[in-house]
């Protein structure tokens, strides 16, 4: 549709070149098709909507009391319809199976997707607010609880109660947003690394001098969550980061870069997310997860409905679906720890500790500035 303004073909030389380029696309795609099919990495196409392995529930699963998203108790005429826009920073491989499963449960709702990394998504929302006074999406499904708190504080999010939120762990329940999946910051080690670290404190041990990698809290929200936890816990404090620095720890950007650095042998150990380390290990990289004492730093990816939405019914139905048994199974099937018990997926390998997000949110600038005096920017 929006292709229309460009339907006029470019001038002479461009046409020939476009044809040449297009031809090579076909060649390239054709060449790698044999590699594509056997890999089957669980990436269904949202449009083709195959019965994916992740969405293990049959259509009848929507009658499941726990899922409740089809709201069997509500009047049938109230079934949500129409179109909603989903703004998300959740990885594509997780969004896809959830959209497929949602499409089966709510065939009358069209979900349009805008997916971008946290930085780009926040910038888009900031521009949206200045341009049209509201976020462009109806639903915000984000990666770390920090930005969602800023939006909640600004009154951007709708206050309501998902019918199926009551049986979730209260740690994941708020007035305007809810946890959807659990991210665990833990230790990744090279398989041949001796000794095996057992606690966060071990990262400051001389045995790992010059060979520890950590993600940058100014770059990744999950790394900020870890910073918040250590800053708030008296036996660590920001002094923990000073001792890491004194031990020669190196700061990378994203947790994935830490996993890669350890897999390549550039570092012996590092601080990363369980999903990242687990995926690498499952593919055959020489790394292992360590669930450190006193616990992995657990945080959650939140979801909420935008106050200004014009289709609250469908938006709320989507959120309830994500929190439902079916939605949680789809999330768990893509490799993340779900917030709902019994949905399958990876289980915690030990204790979990949590940062106080409300407190960390208030100290965002201060914490990042103090961190920067230690590791630089």
């Amino acid at each position, binding site marked *: 549709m929006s292709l229309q303004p460009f339907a006029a073909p470019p001038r002479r030389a461009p046409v020939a070149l476009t044809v040449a380029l297009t031809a090579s696309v076909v060649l390239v795609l054709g060449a790698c098709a044999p590699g594509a099919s056997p890999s089957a990495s669980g990436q269904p196409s949202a449009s083709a909507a195959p019965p994916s392995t992740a969405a293990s529930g049959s259509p009848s699963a929507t009658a499941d009391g726990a899922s409740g998203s089809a709201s069997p108790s509500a009047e049938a005429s109230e079934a949500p319809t129409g179109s909603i826009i989903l703004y998300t920073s959740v990885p594509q491989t997780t969004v896809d199976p959830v959209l497929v499963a949602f499409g089966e449960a709510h065939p009358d709702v069209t979900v349009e997707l805008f997916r971008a990394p946290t930085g780009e998504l926040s910038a*888009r929302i900031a521009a949206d607010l200045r341009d049209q006074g509201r976020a462009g999406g109806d639903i915000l499904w984000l990666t770390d609880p920090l930005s969602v708190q800023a939006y909640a504080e600004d009154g951007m999010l709708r206050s309501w109660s998902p019918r199926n939120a009551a049986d979730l762990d209260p740690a994941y329940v708020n007035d305007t947003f809810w946890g959807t999946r659990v991210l665990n910051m833990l230790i990744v080690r090279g398989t041949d690394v001796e000794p095996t670290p057992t606690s966060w404190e071990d990262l400051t041990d001389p045995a790992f001098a010059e060979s520890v990698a950590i993600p940058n809290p100014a770059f990744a929200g999950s790394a900020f969550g870890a910073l918040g936890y250590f800053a708030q816990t008296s036996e660590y404090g920001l002094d923990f980061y000073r001792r890491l620095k004194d031990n020669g720890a190196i700061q990378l950007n994203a947790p994935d870069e830490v996993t890669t650095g350890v897999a390549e042998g550039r570092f012996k150990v590092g601080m990363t997310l369980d999903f990242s380390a687990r995926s690498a290990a499952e593919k055959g990289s020489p790394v292992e997860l360590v669930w450190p004492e006193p616990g992995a730093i657990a945080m959650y990816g939140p979801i909420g409905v935008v106050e200004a939405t014009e289709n609250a019914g469908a938006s709320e139905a989507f959120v309830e679906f994500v929190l439902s048994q079916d939605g949680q199974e789809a999330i768990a099937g893509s490799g993340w720890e779900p917030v709902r018990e019994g949905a399958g997926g990876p289980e915690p390998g030990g204790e979990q500790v949590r940062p106080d997000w409300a407190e960390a949110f208030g100290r965002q600038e201060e914490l990042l500035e103090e961190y920067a005096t230690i590791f630089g920017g």
Partner: protein
Amino acid sequence: MAEVRGARVAATTLALAAAAAVIGLPVLRLAATAMEHGPTALVGALGGPLAARAVANSLWTAAAIAALAVAAGTAAALVTERVAGGGRRWLRAGMLVPLLIPPFVLALGWTRAFGPRGYLDQAVGVELPGLYGPLGIVLVVAVAAAPVAYLIVAAALASRVEPDLERAARMSGAGRLTVLRTVTLPLLRPALLGATVVAFIFGLNAFGVPAVLGAPAAFGTITTRLYQDLAFSASDAAFERATALATSLVVVAVVVVGAADALLGGRRAARTGLPAGGGGGQAGRLGVAILAVAIVVVTALPALALLATAVTRAVGLPPVPANWTLDNFGEALDVRTVGAIGRSLLLSSAAATIVLGLAALVLAGVRRGPGRLAGTAVTLGFAVPGSALAIAVLLAWGGVLRDTLAIILVAYVAKFWALGHRQLAGSVDALPADLVRAARASGARPLVVLRTITLPILRPSILAAWFLVVISGLHELTMSSLLYGPGTSTLAVAVINVQQLGDPTVTASLAVLLTALVALPALPLLWLGRARAIGSAGAAG
């Protein structure tokens, strides 16, 4: 003549109007956002120690990148245009290969090839010290920028510098170095200055490379600081800081580009005599050998390392046949990628065509005053980092164009206009004015002159400029990932989706596919195009 003058004024007016719409308005909206809460926010944003250090880091690395890229590009141009014999085509193609590789991918290739635990380190225990840090940033961005500098200098050498002057100097007994110092380089001065400006802005603007290589050394630049502020832009303070940093980049660009354009002035030179080249001697052969080795080391080895990474089952495993697989290529693609590639090709070629039309307007317009202004203004779009330019375009045009391909097109035109303009400007400068005058004096109307004289001579440059913009559009990641809407996702969205999964073997696979996508049709065309460029330049002379 009044008729021609009127047409020139109209062309300049049109070009200025377009520049105001796609560049001026968005940049002003950006600056206004930075000043939303008065100038204190702006001062606060730029006054902090981190931001001050980022500005300083950006300035000195961009200067070093410009110096290195122009030196390398000029040396390579002297070899391919003045010395090399048979291998000339291969060397030319080799010099342009980095254009086909997105910079962040080049950085990934360098770390895999020369970094700690890279392939060289694993094979012979040698790593490049300082790759993670300012040295690596300068080296890799300079490699990425060198082809652009090379194109500008080589075009000037092929058509602007007068080979007869060089020959005369040689015959009068001047040594090669003396000729280079007293004849060739002074004649190249405008091209060198132009190449320096483009390479400087290229360095100022780099994001992917400093993001990958700077973090371990805690080396931040304006663009990486800006990205970090954007990541926290749910907070108003951080968002304003990001827009303030972007505005500071615009100011730096205005100062640098404006000064350079003022220096460049309107000098013209017409070439006499046939193109030089084919000469050699021992020094020449040494130059060819050095250039060939340099191309292999800075481009081919990292590209091979990337390929090795792409076919290895998992990161951290040695790239031996037992670990080879094609699975990563499958993970790198999904069904949506195909549609996205189509849209990206459409957008890039539409942007390239529009950019060339606009560049032609500027060049056909009046030379002084407003014409100079238009030439400088188009460079601003290139100077603003993609993420900030995308926000600026969304602020200025989101109301009417939100979620359409047109808004991405506006951003592409704003960003890449400068590339097309600078590339074409060099060749238009070198147009033999006597030919045009002769045709006009013989009674040819302006359009006939354009069709029979100007366009045929410029054809290779137009083709090169068009390609440069198409490739830049295909490699562009940030802008379209911020501007796309339902149904208008581009290749960038697919690339970022894959990149964010954080598996370097899959990212490398996608990078290999992307490079192949551009390289397969581009290499033969560039090769033929350059050959014809020399042919037609020779004929024109």
